[in-house]
């Protein structure tokens, strides 16, 4: 943990809004992406992300540094928030195209447009994976978090995270190849 971050956390725990704003600005995109991949809809992702940071702010005094990064704590809150979301709303994962506003790639270039479509296809495929696989893929391959941090956030050992990553990637490739070979992705 960076000393600077530690300082901001201490200040935010004392109610310093500016310090929390800095933490919010730093971690918001990653937490938002994580939730976005889990729920797919922009509005839902925004609502849950808001709930996560609200909960973090309200419970800042309860956060204790025990060798775990602050982001692991936020991911734990986010994970629970997503679980609660599905438990209370009884919703299933919706397969829908990512909102164009999310993927900030100019769409006038045909090459980039193809890349964008590719991304959307992968996003759909990720949604078909088990939640555990999704978590590890998002955290590891998109956010590039270290295994130790993912292990802490998910309450698993580093070895288990590596294994899940391997299996998730294998399954993702397999599902992706199925869709590119003309098979439709089944809705979950």
């Amino acid at each position: 943990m960076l000393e600077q971050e530690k300082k901001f956390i201490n200040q935010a725990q004392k109610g310093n809004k500016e310090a929390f704003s800095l933490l919010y600005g730093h971690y918001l995109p990653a937490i938002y992406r994580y939730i976005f991949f889990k729920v797919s809809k922009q509005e839902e992702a925004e609502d849950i992300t808001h709930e996560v940071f609200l909960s973090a702010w309200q419970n800042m005094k309860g956060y204790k540094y025990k060798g775990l990064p602050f982001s692991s704590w936020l991911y734990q809150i986010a994970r629970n928030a997503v679980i609660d979301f599905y438990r209370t709303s009884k919703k299933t994962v919706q397969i829908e195209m990512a909102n164009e506003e999310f993927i900030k790639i100019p769409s006038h270039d045909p090459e980039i447009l193809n890349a964008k479509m590719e991304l959307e296809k992968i996003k759909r495929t990720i949604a078909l994976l088990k939640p555990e696989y999704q978590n590890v893929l998002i955290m590891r391959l998109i956010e590039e978090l270290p295994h130790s941090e993912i292990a802490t956030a998910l309450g698993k050992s580093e070895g288990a995270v590596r294994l899940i990553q391997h299996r998730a990637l294998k399954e993702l490739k397999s599902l992706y190849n199925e869709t590119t070979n003309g098979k439709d992705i089944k809705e979950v």
Partner: protein
Amino acid sequence: MEKILKKFKTIEPKEEFKRRSLAIILNTPQNEYQPKPFEYLGSFFNLQKIMGLTAVATLLIISGLSFLNNKLIGPSLVSNLNQQDLNKEMESFNIQFSQIKYYDDSAKRIEVALMKTSGESVTKEQNEEINQILDELTL
């Protein structure tokens, strides 16, 4: 695949959402921290302390047992017990040896006496000797 996945890092929430959400959050009061039951107990008895206490307890038990061992069945007592046992055993050996010697001598003398009485005339000295042997045997 991994390279494609990394491109998802471009996904970001809208600026409007960021501002609105943060404003709402910061206008919400923070909760007062309430420790969970036994939390202090849990933090007091963390793994390192448990291990330390276990080590001390083990040391105390071992030293206590060692002290008792020295006190109750220490080397001096053990040596005394051994000495007593040895003395007893020695006494019994002595008794056995004297008995063996006695029976051995008696047998030889009886044999001599019987041989003399069976064929040959017995002198006064021999007669006394026979009487003496018989007395010893009857006693």
